[in-house]
Protein backbone atom coordinates (compact mmCIF):
# COMPACT_ATOMS: atom_id res chain seq x y z
CA UNK A 1 0.00 0.00 0.00
CA UNK A 2 2.76 2.44 0.84
CA UNK A 3 3.85 3.62 -2.55
CA UNK A 4 5.94 6.68 -3.30
CA UNK A 5 2.82 8.46 -4.37
CA UNK A 6 1.10 8.40 -1.02
CA UNK A 7 1.56 11.81 0.39
CA UNK A 8 -0.56 11.44 3.51
CA UNK A 9 -1.53 8.11 4.96
CA UNK A 10 -3.76 7.14 7.86
CA UNK A 11 -2.98 3.82 9.54
CA UNK A 12 -5.74 2.67 11.87
CA UNK A 13 -6.34 6.16 13.22
CA UNK A 14 -8.86 6.82 15.99
CA UNK A 15 -9.32 9.98 17.96
CA UNK A 16 -11.18 10.59 21.22
CA UNK A 17 -11.98 14.10 22.36
CA UNK A 18 -11.48 14.71 26.06
CA UNK A 19 -14.43 13.24 27.92
CA UNK A 20 -15.84 11.78 24.70
CA UNK A 21 -17.13 8.23 25.05
CA UNK A 22 -17.05 7.25 21.42
CA UNK A 23 -14.25 8.14 19.00
CA UNK A 24 -14.79 11.15 16.74
CA UNK A 25 -12.96 9.21 14.05
CA UNK A 26 -12.74 5.47 14.24
CA UNK A 27 -10.05 3.23 12.74
CA UNK A 28 -9.37 5.27 9.62
CA UNK A 29 -7.20 3.68 6.94
CA UNK A 30 -6.76 5.91 3.91
CA UNK A 31 -4.25 7.55 1.61
CA UNK A 32 -3.99 10.85 -0.18
CA UNK A 33 -1.80 10.79 -3.26
CA UNK A 34 0.27 13.66 -4.60
CA UNK A 35 -1.72 16.09 -6.71
CA UNK A 36 -5.01 14.42 -5.92
CA UNK A 37 -8.29 16.23 -5.28
CA UNK A 38 -10.38 14.53 -2.62
CA UNK A 39 -13.81 15.77 -1.60
CA UNK A 40 -14.97 14.79 1.89
CA UNK A 41 -18.71 14.60 2.46
CA UNK A 42 -20.69 13.76 5.56
CA UNK A 43 -23.36 15.04 7.91
CA UNK A 44 -22.51 17.41 10.76
CA UNK A 45 -20.71 15.46 13.46
CA UNK A 46 -19.58 12.67 11.14
CA UNK A 47 -15.90 13.35 11.86
CA UNK A 48 -14.88 15.33 8.76
CA UNK A 49 -13.21 18.21 10.58
CA UNK A 50 -11.52 15.91 13.08
CA UNK A 51 -10.10 13.90 10.19
CA UNK A 52 -8.90 17.08 8.46
CA UNK A 53 -7.14 18.34 11.58
CA UNK A 54 -5.04 15.18 11.65
CA UNK A 55 -3.56 16.02 8.26
CA UNK A 56 -1.22 18.70 9.59
CA UNK A 57 -0.75 17.65 13.19
CA UNK A 58 -3.33 20.04 14.64
CA UNK A 59 -4.69 16.88 16.26
CA UNK A 60 -2.64 13.79 17.02
CA UNK A 61 -4.17 10.32 16.85
CA UNK A 62 -5.26 8.63 20.08
CA UNK A 63 -4.60 5.35 18.28
CA UNK A 64 -2.81 4.56 15.03
CA UNK A 65 -0.63 6.99 13.13
CA UNK A 66 -0.68 9.58 10.37
CA UNK A 67 2.27 9.92 8.01
CA UNK A 68 2.82 13.09 5.99
CA UNK A 69 5.46 12.66 3.33
CA UNK A 70 6.80 9.83 5.46
CA UNK A 71 6.89 11.87 8.68
CA UNK A 72 4.90 10.69 11.70
CA UNK A 73 2.72 13.59 12.91
CA UNK A 74 3.37 12.57 16.53
CA UNK A 75 7.03 13.50 16.09
CA UNK A 76 7.12 17.04 17.50
CA UNK A 77 10.39 17.83 15.70
CA UNK A 78 8.56 17.49 12.39
CA UNK A 79 5.49 19.57 13.22
CA UNK A 80 6.75 22.76 11.60
CA UNK A 81 7.75 20.97 8.42
CA UNK A 82 4.45 19.12 8.24
CA UNK A 83 2.50 22.35 8.60
CA UNK A 84 4.53 23.90 5.83
CA UNK A 85 3.69 21.00 3.54
CA UNK A 86 0.02 20.85 4.47
CA UNK A 87 -1.93 24.10 4.61
CA UNK A 88 -5.32 24.41 6.21
CA UNK A 89 -8.25 26.79 5.68
CA UNK A 90 -11.18 26.72 8.06
CA UNK A 91 -14.84 27.61 7.83
CA UNK A 92 -14.70 30.74 9.92
CA UNK A 93 -12.20 33.20 8.48
CA UNK A 94 -12.32 35.58 11.46
CA UNK A 95 -10.17 33.20 13.49
CA UNK A 96 -7.48 33.06 10.83
CA UNK A 97 -6.62 36.65 10.04
CA UNK A 98 -3.68 38.20 11.84
CA UNK A 99 -2.36 41.38 10.22
CA UNK A 100 -3.42 45.02 9.78
CA UNK A 101 -3.57 44.97 5.96
CA UNK A 102 -4.71 42.36 3.48
CA UNK A 103 -1.30 42.03 1.81
CA UNK A 104 0.48 41.83 5.16
CA UNK A 105 -1.87 39.09 6.20
CA UNK A 106 -0.95 37.07 3.12
CA UNK A 107 2.76 37.80 3.66
CA UNK A 108 2.64 36.69 7.30
CA UNK A 109 3.34 33.00 6.61
CA UNK A 110 6.09 33.46 4.00
CA UNK A 111 7.83 36.04 6.24
CA UNK A 112 7.71 33.65 9.16
CA UNK A 113 9.60 30.98 7.28
CA UNK A 114 12.30 33.51 6.40
CA UNK A 115 11.89 33.78 2.62
CA UNK A 116 13.70 36.43 0.55
CA UNK A 117 11.69 39.68 0.14
CA UNK A 118 11.50 39.18 -3.66
CA UNK A 119 10.07 35.72 -3.20
CA UNK A 120 7.61 36.95 -0.60
CA UNK A 121 6.31 39.64 -2.95
CA UNK A 122 5.97 37.17 -5.81
CA UNK A 123 4.04 34.74 -3.65
CA UNK A 124 1.78 37.40 -2.19
CA UNK A 125 0.96 38.77 -5.64
CA UNK A 126 0.17 35.33 -7.01
CA UNK A 127 -1.99 34.38 -4.02
CA UNK A 128 -3.95 37.65 -4.14
CA UNK A 129 -4.56 37.12 -7.84
CA UNK A 130 -5.84 33.59 -7.33
CA UNK A 131 -8.15 34.74 -4.56
CA UNK A 132 -9.36 37.78 -6.53
CA UNK A 133 -8.22 40.26 -3.88
CA UNK A 134 -5.71 42.32 -5.83
CA UNK A 135 -7.67 45.56 -5.58
CA UNK A 136 -8.26 45.15 -1.85
CA UNK A 137 -4.63 44.55 -0.90
CA UNK A 138 -4.27 47.74 1.11
CA UNK A 139 -7.42 47.36 3.19
CA UNK A 140 -7.60 46.26 6.80
CA UNK A 141 -9.04 42.72 6.94
CA UNK A 142 -11.70 43.71 9.47
CA UNK A 143 -13.31 45.98 6.88
CA UNK A 144 -13.78 43.12 4.43
CA UNK A 145 -17.09 41.31 4.00
CA UNK A 146 -17.47 37.72 5.24
CA UNK A 147 -16.82 36.25 1.81
CA UNK A 148 -13.82 38.49 1.17
CA UNK A 149 -12.32 37.36 4.48
CA UNK A 150 -12.77 33.78 3.39
CA UNK A 151 -10.87 34.54 0.17
CA UNK A 152 -8.14 36.14 2.25
CA UNK A 153 -7.76 33.05 4.42
CA UNK A 154 -7.35 30.99 1.22
CA UNK A 155 -4.77 33.45 -0.16
CA UNK A 156 -2.77 33.22 3.07
CA UNK A 157 -2.65 29.45 2.82
CA UNK A 158 -1.72 29.47 -0.88
CA UNK A 159 1.18 31.87 -0.29
CA UNK A 160 2.84 29.09 1.70
CA UNK A 161 2.88 26.98 -1.50
CA UNK A 162 1.75 23.86 0.33
CA UNK A 163 2.00 20.41 -1.28
CA UNK A 164 -1.46 19.76 0.04
CA UNK A 165 -4.19 22.21 0.92
CA UNK A 166 -6.96 21.11 3.27
CA UNK A 167 -10.09 23.24 3.08
CA UNK A 168 -12.85 22.82 5.65
CA UNK A 169 -15.98 24.21 3.96
CA UNK A 170 -14.15 27.25 2.67
CA UNK A 171 -17.00 28.33 0.41
CA UNK A 172 -19.83 28.22 2.94
CA UNK A 173 -20.02 32.00 3.11
CA UNK A 174 -19.35 32.81 -0.52
CA UNK A 175 -22.02 33.70 -3.05
CA UNK A 176 -22.66 31.15 -5.83
CA UNK A 177 -20.56 33.06 -8.37
CA UNK A 178 -17.67 33.46 -5.94
CA UNK A 179 -17.90 29.82 -4.97
CA UNK A 180 -17.52 28.61 -8.55
CA UNK A 181 -14.78 31.13 -9.20
CA UNK A 182 -12.70 30.19 -6.15
CA UNK A 183 -13.06 26.50 -6.85
CA UNK A 184 -11.95 26.85 -10.45
CA UNK A 185 -9.01 29.05 -9.41
CA UNK A 186 -8.02 26.47 -6.81
CA UNK A 187 -8.25 23.74 -9.44
CA UNK A 188 -5.96 25.71 -11.75
CA UNK A 189 -3.49 26.29 -8.96
CA UNK A 190 -3.60 22.61 -8.13
CA UNK A 191 -2.97 21.63 -11.76
CA UNK A 192 -0.11 24.07 -12.25
CA UNK A 193 1.67 23.24 -9.04
CA UNK A 194 0.68 19.60 -8.58
CA UNK A 195 -0.84 20.51 -5.24
CA UNK A 196 -3.10 17.95 -3.58
CA UNK A 197 -6.40 19.22 -2.25
CA UNK A 198 -8.74 17.90 0.42
CA UNK A 199 -12.04 19.70 0.23
CA UNK A 200 -14.71 19.33 2.88
CA UNK A 201 -18.11 20.37 1.59
CA UNK A 202 -21.85 19.87 1.86
CA UNK A 203 -22.35 20.65 -1.80
CA UNK A 204 -22.62 17.71 -4.15
CA UNK A 205 -21.94 19.88 -7.18
CA UNK A 206 -18.55 20.83 -5.73
CA UNK A 207 -17.75 17.22 -4.91
CA UNK A 208 -18.58 16.23 -8.51
CA UNK A 209 -15.39 18.00 -9.61
CA UNK A 210 -13.12 15.88 -7.43
CA UNK A 211 -10.97 12.87 -8.36
CA UNK A 212 -12.19 10.91 -5.37
CA UNK A 213 -14.95 11.27 -2.79
CA UNK A 214 -14.82 10.11 0.80
CA UNK A 215 -18.17 9.79 2.52
CA UNK A 216 -18.00 9.90 6.30
CA UNK A 217 -20.56 8.69 8.80
CA UNK A 218 -20.20 8.12 12.54
CA UNK A 219 -16.42 8.59 12.48
CA UNK A 220 -15.71 6.22 9.61
CA UNK A 221 -15.06 6.55 5.90
CA UNK A 222 -17.96 4.50 4.55
CA UNK A 223 -17.27 5.09 0.88
CA UNK A 224 -14.17 5.91 -1.14
CA UNK A 225 -14.53 6.17 -4.90
CA UNK A 226 -15.11 8.35 -7.91
CA UNK A 227 -17.95 10.87 -7.55
CA UNK A 228 -19.99 8.97 -10.14
CA UNK A 229 -19.60 5.68 -8.32
CA UNK A 230 -20.43 7.14 -4.96
CA UNK A 231 -23.31 9.40 -5.94
CA UNK A 232 -25.40 6.79 -7.67
CA UNK A 233 -25.56 4.78 -4.46
CA UNK A 234 -28.60 6.48 -2.94
CA UNK A 235 -28.83 4.07 -0.04
CA UNK A 236 -25.28 4.89 0.97
CA UNK A 237 -25.95 8.62 0.78
CA UNK A 238 -29.09 8.23 2.83
CA UNK A 239 -27.20 6.24 5.43
CA UNK A 240 -24.68 9.09 5.68
CA UNK A 241 -27.40 11.74 6.06
CA UNK A 242 -26.63 13.16 2.62
CA UNK A 243 -28.89 13.98 -0.28
CA UNK A 244 -28.38 12.97 -3.90
CA UNK A 245 -27.99 15.84 -6.37
CA UNK A 246 -31.30 17.57 -7.22
CA UNK A 247 -31.22 16.14 -10.75
CA UNK A 248 -30.71 12.63 -9.38
CA UNK A 249 -33.73 13.15 -7.13
CA UNK A 250 -35.84 14.28 -10.08
CA UNK A 251 -34.72 11.22 -12.05
CA UNK A 252 -35.55 8.97 -9.11
CA UNK A 253 -39.05 10.48 -8.76
CA UNK A 254 -39.75 10.13 -12.48
CA UNK A 255 -38.65 6.54 -12.23
CA UNK A 256 -40.97 5.97 -9.33
CA UNK A 257 -43.79 7.40 -11.42
CA UNK A 258 -43.19 4.57 -13.88
CA UNK A 259 -40.76 6.05 -16.41
CA UNK A 260 -37.67 4.18 -17.37
CA UNK A 261 -34.63 6.28 -16.48
CA UNK A 262 -31.04 5.18 -15.86
CA UNK A 263 -29.60 5.24 -12.33
CA UNK A 264 -26.61 7.39 -13.09
CA UNK A 265 -28.17 10.76 -13.89
CA UNK A 266 -26.38 13.30 -11.71
CA UNK A 267 -26.89 16.73 -13.24
CA UNK A 268 -29.41 18.65 -15.31
CA UNK A 269 -27.45 18.26 -18.55
CA UNK A 270 -27.66 14.51 -18.27
CA UNK A 271 -31.33 14.61 -17.30
CA UNK A 272 -32.38 16.90 -20.15
CA UNK A 273 -30.26 14.93 -22.65
CA UNK A 274 -31.86 11.70 -21.66
CA UNK A 275 -35.41 13.09 -21.76
CA UNK A 276 -34.79 14.46 -25.24
CA UNK A 277 -33.63 11.09 -26.49
CA UNK A 278 -36.64 9.23 -25.08
Amino acid at each position, binding site marked *: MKTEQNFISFDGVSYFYEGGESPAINNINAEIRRGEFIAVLGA*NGSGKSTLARHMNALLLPSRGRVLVNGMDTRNADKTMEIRRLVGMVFQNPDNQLVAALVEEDVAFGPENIGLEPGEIIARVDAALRVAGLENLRNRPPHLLS*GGQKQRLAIAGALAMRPDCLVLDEPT*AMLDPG*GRKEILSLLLNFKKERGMAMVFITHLMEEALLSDRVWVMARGRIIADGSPRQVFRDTRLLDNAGLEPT*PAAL*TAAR*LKKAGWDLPDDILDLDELVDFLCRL
Partner: protein
Amino acid sequence: MPIIRVEKVCHTYSPGTPLEVAALKDITLEVQRGEILALAGSTGSGKSTLAMMLNGLLVPTKGCVLVNGQDTRLKKNRRDLWRQVGLVFQYPEYQFFEENVFKEVAFGPSNMGLPSAEIEERVNRSLEWVGLDPETIRQRSPWTLSGGQKRRVALASVLAIGPNVLVLDEPTAGIDPAGKRQILDLIKNLQKKRDLTVVLITHNMDDIARTADRLMVLDRGTVFALGTPGKIFEDHRGLRAIGLDIPYAAEAKSRLNSAGIPVQTESLNIAEVEKEIIKYLRLKKQ
Protein backbone atom coordinates in the same frame (compact mmCIF):
# COMPACT_ATOMS: atom_id res chain seq x y z
CA MET B 1 -48.72 48.29 7.44
CA PRO B 2 -44.97 47.83 7.23
CA ILE B 3 -43.21 46.88 10.47
CA ILE B 4 -39.86 48.23 9.22
CA ARG B 5 -39.29 51.14 6.86
CA VAL B 6 -35.89 51.76 5.40
CA GLU B 7 -35.93 55.21 3.85
CA LYS B 8 -33.29 56.40 1.42
CA VAL B 9 -30.55 54.84 3.47
CA CYS B 10 -26.89 55.36 2.66
CA HIS B 11 -24.06 53.96 4.66
CA THR B 12 -20.40 54.73 4.31
CA TYR B 13 -17.72 52.98 6.32
CA SER B 14 -14.71 55.03 7.44
CA PRO B 15 -16.00 58.25 5.83
CA GLY B 16 -13.41 60.90 5.02
CA THR B 17 -10.51 58.44 5.12
CA PRO B 18 -8.69 56.66 2.28
CA LEU B 19 -10.55 53.52 3.38
CA GLU B 20 -13.95 55.03 2.68
CA VAL B 21 -16.42 52.46 1.29
CA ALA B 22 -20.01 53.19 0.36
CA ALA B 23 -21.70 49.98 1.52
CA LEU B 24 -25.29 51.10 0.90
CA LYS B 25 -26.48 53.72 -1.56
CA ASP B 26 -29.98 55.09 -1.34
CA ILE B 27 -31.86 51.98 -0.23
CA THR B 28 -35.62 52.15 0.31
CA LEU B 29 -37.49 49.12 1.57
CA GLU B 30 -40.64 48.26 3.51
CA VAL B 31 -40.76 45.02 5.44
CA GLN B 32 -44.40 43.98 5.78
CA ARG B 33 -45.69 42.50 9.01
CA GLY B 34 -45.73 38.69 8.90
CA GLU B 35 -43.80 38.22 5.67
CA ILE B 36 -40.60 36.36 4.94
CA LEU B 37 -38.42 38.75 3.02
CA ALA B 38 -35.22 37.34 1.57
CA LEU B 39 -32.20 39.51 1.06
CA ALA B 40 -29.71 38.24 -1.51
CA GLY B 41 -26.61 39.68 -3.09
CA SER B 42 -23.05 38.65 -3.74
CA THR B 43 -20.27 38.98 -1.21
CA GLY B 44 -19.82 42.61 -0.21
CA SER B 45 -23.16 43.75 -1.68
CA GLY B 46 -24.26 45.33 1.60
CA LYS B 47 -26.61 42.64 2.94
CA SER B 48 -25.04 42.34 6.37
CA THR B 49 -24.71 46.12 6.67
CA LEU B 50 -28.43 46.47 6.01
CA ALA B 51 -29.19 43.67 8.48
CA MET B 52 -27.36 45.46 11.27
CA MET B 53 -29.40 48.56 10.56
CA LEU B 54 -32.69 46.81 11.14
CA ASN B 55 -32.26 46.88 14.90
CA GLY B 56 -30.05 49.90 15.31
CA LEU B 57 -26.73 48.08 15.73
CA LEU B 58 -25.62 50.35 12.92
CA VAL B 59 -27.14 53.73 12.15
CA PRO B 60 -27.28 55.01 8.56
CA THR B 61 -24.95 57.86 7.60
CA LYS B 62 -27.88 59.23 5.54
CA GLY B 63 -31.60 58.44 5.52
CA CYS B 64 -33.41 56.62 8.31
CA VAL B 65 -34.76 53.29 9.50
CA LEU B 66 -38.08 53.15 11.33
CA VAL B 67 -39.09 50.06 13.29
CA ASN B 68 -42.73 50.21 14.31
CA GLY B 69 -42.43 53.92 13.70
CA GLN B 70 -39.43 54.29 16.01
CA ASP B 71 -36.37 55.95 14.52
CA THR B 72 -33.23 53.85 15.09
CA ARG B 73 -31.12 57.01 15.26
CA LEU B 74 -32.63 57.99 18.60
CA LYS B 75 -30.69 56.53 21.50
CA LYS B 76 -33.74 56.26 23.71
CA ASN B 77 -35.29 53.78 21.25
CA ARG B 78 -32.34 51.39 21.11
CA ARG B 79 -33.04 49.15 24.06
CA ASP B 80 -36.54 48.54 22.82
CA LEU B 81 -35.32 47.94 19.27
CA TRP B 82 -32.97 45.18 20.33
CA ARG B 83 -35.94 43.41 21.87
CA GLN B 84 -38.24 43.89 18.94
CA VAL B 85 -35.80 42.87 16.25
CA GLY B 86 -33.76 39.74 16.98
CA LEU B 87 -30.58 39.35 14.98
CA VAL B 88 -29.07 35.91 14.44
CA PHE B 89 -25.57 36.31 13.06
CA GLN B 90 -23.59 34.02 10.77
CA TYR B 91 -22.36 30.97 12.66
CA PRO B 92 -24.09 32.10 15.88
CA GLU B 93 -22.88 29.00 17.72
CA TYR B 94 -19.37 30.46 17.74
CA GLN B 95 -20.70 32.90 20.31
CA PHE B 96 -21.92 30.29 22.81
CA PHE B 97 -20.33 30.74 26.19
CA GLU B 98 -22.58 29.16 28.81
CA GLU B 99 -22.06 25.69 30.26
CA ASN B 100 -25.50 24.37 29.42
CA VAL B 101 -28.32 24.97 26.98
CA PHE B 102 -30.67 26.37 29.61
CA LYS B 103 -28.24 29.11 30.65
CA GLU B 104 -27.42 29.89 27.06
CA VAL B 105 -31.06 30.47 26.13
CA ALA B 106 -31.82 32.19 29.45
CA PHE B 107 -29.08 34.77 28.95
CA GLY B 108 -31.28 37.27 27.09
CA PRO B 109 -34.36 37.10 29.32
CA SER B 110 -32.14 37.20 32.46
CA ASN B 111 -30.54 40.39 31.19
CA MET B 112 -33.99 41.87 30.78
CA GLY B 113 -34.45 41.42 34.53
CA LEU B 114 -37.45 39.12 34.23
CA PRO B 115 -38.61 37.03 37.20
CA SER B 116 -37.24 33.48 37.20
CA ALA B 117 -40.58 31.84 36.51
CA GLU B 118 -40.96 33.96 33.38
CA ILE B 119 -37.39 33.15 32.31
CA GLU B 120 -38.08 29.46 32.77
CA GLU B 121 -41.22 29.72 30.70
CA ARG B 122 -39.53 31.65 27.91
CA VAL B 123 -36.63 29.21 27.70
CA ASN B 124 -38.96 26.22 27.49
CA ARG B 125 -41.19 27.88 24.96
CA SER B 126 -38.35 28.98 22.68
CA LEU B 127 -36.73 25.56 22.76
CA GLU B 128 -40.06 24.01 21.82
CA TRP B 129 -40.52 26.48 19.01
CA VAL B 130 -37.22 25.40 17.46
CA GLY B 131 -38.17 21.75 17.77
CA LEU B 132 -35.97 20.79 20.73
CA ASP B 133 -37.28 19.01 23.80
CA PRO B 134 -36.52 21.32 26.76
CA GLU B 135 -36.41 18.47 29.28
CA THR B 136 -33.79 16.39 27.52
CA ILE B 137 -31.63 19.21 26.23
CA ARG B 138 -31.56 21.86 28.97
CA GLN B 139 -28.65 20.45 30.97
CA ARG B 140 -26.52 19.50 27.99
CA SER B 141 -23.40 21.42 27.12
CA PRO B 142 -23.96 23.36 23.88
CA TRP B 143 -20.66 21.95 22.61
CA THR B 144 -21.94 18.37 22.59
CA LEU B 145 -24.79 19.15 20.19
CA SER B 146 -24.80 18.52 16.44
CA GLY B 147 -24.36 21.43 14.04
CA GLY B 148 -28.07 21.66 13.30
CA GLN B 149 -28.99 21.50 17.00
CA LYS B 150 -26.48 24.21 17.88
CA ARG B 151 -27.94 26.45 15.23
CA ARG B 152 -31.42 25.87 16.66
CA VAL B 153 -30.26 26.64 20.20
CA ALA B 154 -28.81 29.91 18.92
CA LEU B 155 -32.14 30.69 17.33
CA ALA B 156 -33.97 29.84 20.56
CA SER B 157 -31.75 32.18 22.55
CA VAL B 158 -32.83 35.06 20.32
CA LEU B 159 -36.50 33.98 20.37
CA ALA B 160 -36.41 33.98 24.19
CA ILE B 161 -36.04 37.76 24.10
CA GLY B 162 -39.45 37.88 22.43
CA PRO B 163 -38.79 39.69 19.13
CA ASN B 164 -41.47 40.48 16.53
CA VAL B 165 -38.94 40.41 13.75
CA LEU B 166 -36.18 37.87 13.21
CA VAL B 167 -33.21 38.78 11.05
CA LEU B 168 -31.28 35.67 10.07
CA ASP B 169 -27.88 35.97 8.43
CA GLU B 170 -27.11 32.78 6.46
CA PRO B 171 -29.01 30.51 8.86
CA THR B 172 -28.25 27.30 6.94
CA ALA B 173 -24.56 27.88 6.10
CA GLY B 174 -22.42 24.90 7.05
CA ILE B 175 -25.39 22.69 8.00
CA ASP B 176 -25.94 19.28 6.41
CA PRO B 177 -28.96 18.66 4.12
CA ALA B 178 -31.21 17.15 6.79
CA GLY B 179 -30.44 19.91 9.29
CA LYS B 180 -30.94 22.51 6.59
CA ARG B 181 -34.42 21.26 5.79
CA GLN B 182 -35.38 21.32 9.49
CA ILE B 183 -34.19 24.89 9.88
CA LEU B 184 -36.09 26.09 6.82
CA ASP B 185 -39.29 24.35 7.97
CA LEU B 186 -38.78 25.92 11.35
CA ILE B 187 -38.49 29.41 9.88
CA LYS B 188 -41.70 28.86 7.91
CA ASN B 189 -43.44 27.69 11.09
CA LEU B 190 -42.29 30.68 13.09
CA GLN B 191 -43.81 32.91 10.46
CA LYS B 192 -47.08 31.00 10.16
CA LYS B 193 -47.80 29.96 13.71
CA ARG B 194 -46.03 32.60 15.76
CA ASP B 195 -46.72 35.56 13.52
CA LEU B 196 -43.09 36.49 13.25
CA THR B 197 -41.75 38.67 10.48
CA VAL B 198 -38.55 37.22 9.04
CA VAL B 199 -35.73 38.82 7.10
CA LEU B 200 -33.65 36.03 5.62
CA ILE B 201 -30.19 36.87 4.33
CA THR B 202 -28.76 34.13 2.17
CA HIS B 203 -26.76 33.12 -0.87
CA ASN B 204 -28.78 29.99 -1.22
CA MET B 205 -31.32 30.46 -3.98
CA ASP B 206 -33.06 27.17 -3.20
CA ASP B 207 -33.61 28.32 0.38
CA ILE B 208 -35.21 31.47 -1.01
CA ALA B 209 -37.39 29.54 -3.45
CA ARG B 210 -38.56 27.33 -0.61
CA THR B 211 -39.41 29.98 1.97
CA ALA B 212 -39.53 33.60 0.85
CA ASP B 213 -42.63 35.67 0.04
CA ARG B 214 -40.58 38.50 -1.38
CA LEU B 215 -36.99 39.00 -2.40
CA MET B 216 -34.68 41.97 -2.52
CA VAL B 217 -31.44 41.59 -4.46
CA LEU B 218 -28.60 43.95 -3.66
CA ASP B 219 -25.66 44.65 -5.92
CA ARG B 220 -22.74 46.77 -4.71
CA GLY B 221 -24.92 48.68 -2.30
CA THR B 222 -27.87 49.37 -4.60
CA VAL B 223 -31.19 47.62 -5.19
CA PHE B 224 -30.88 45.30 -8.17
CA ALA B 225 -34.39 43.87 -7.87
CA LEU B 226 -37.32 43.81 -5.45
CA GLY B 227 -40.37 41.60 -5.90
CA THR B 228 -41.57 38.01 -5.83
CA PRO B 229 -38.89 35.31 -6.13
CA GLY B 230 -40.71 33.74 -9.10
CA LYS B 231 -40.49 36.95 -11.10
CA ILE B 232 -36.92 37.84 -10.10
CA PHE B 233 -35.55 34.38 -10.82
CA GLU B 234 -36.63 34.72 -14.45
CA ASP B 235 -33.65 37.01 -15.03
CA HIS B 236 -31.00 34.29 -15.15
CA ARG B 237 -28.45 36.29 -17.00
CA GLY B 238 -28.76 39.36 -14.81
CA LEU B 239 -28.47 37.37 -11.59
CA ARG B 240 -25.47 35.40 -12.82
CA ALA B 241 -23.76 38.61 -13.90
CA ILE B 242 -23.88 39.87 -10.31
CA GLY B 243 -22.52 36.64 -8.87
CA LEU B 244 -25.79 34.96 -7.94
CA ASP B 245 -27.52 31.89 -9.25
CA ILE B 246 -31.07 30.70 -9.74
CA PRO B 247 -32.80 27.90 -7.84
CA TYR B 248 -32.72 24.37 -9.17
CA ALA B 249 -36.40 24.39 -10.21
CA ALA B 250 -35.96 27.59 -12.24
CA GLU B 251 -32.82 26.23 -13.84
CA ALA B 252 -34.53 22.94 -14.68
CA LYS B 253 -37.50 24.81 -16.16
CA SER B 254 -35.34 26.91 -18.43
CA ARG B 255 -33.11 24.05 -19.61
CA LEU B 256 -36.14 21.88 -20.37
CA ASN B 257 -37.88 24.66 -22.25
CA SER B 258 -34.88 25.40 -24.40
CA ALA B 259 -34.52 21.69 -25.16
CA GLY B 260 -38.09 21.66 -26.49
CA ILE B 261 -39.74 20.10 -23.45
CA PRO B 262 -42.46 22.59 -22.53
CA VAL B 263 -42.70 23.47 -18.85
CA GLN B 264 -45.41 26.03 -18.27
CA THR B 265 -45.61 26.31 -14.50
CA GLU B 266 -44.76 29.59 -12.74
CA SER B 267 -43.95 27.67 -9.59
CA LEU B 268 -40.48 27.35 -8.09
CA ASN B 269 -41.50 24.04 -6.61
CA ILE B 270 -39.69 21.22 -8.38
CA ALA B 271 -42.71 18.90 -7.97
CA GLU B 272 -44.65 21.16 -10.34
CA VAL B 273 -41.86 21.04 -12.90
CA GLU B 274 -41.77 17.26 -12.65
CA LYS B 275 -45.54 17.11 -13.29
CA GLU B 276 -44.93 18.98 -16.53
CA ILE B 277 -42.18 16.54 -17.51
CA ILE B 278 -44.56 13.64 -16.95
CA LYS B 279 -47.23 15.39 -19.03
CA TYR B 280 -44.70 15.68 -21.85
CA LEU B 281 -43.62 12.07 -21.56
CA ARG B 282 -47.26 10.89 -21.70
CA LEU B 283 -47.97 12.93 -24.81
CA LYS B 284 -44.86 11.59 -26.46
CA LYS B 285 -45.78 8.01 -25.71
CA GLN B 286 -49.18 8.31 -27.39
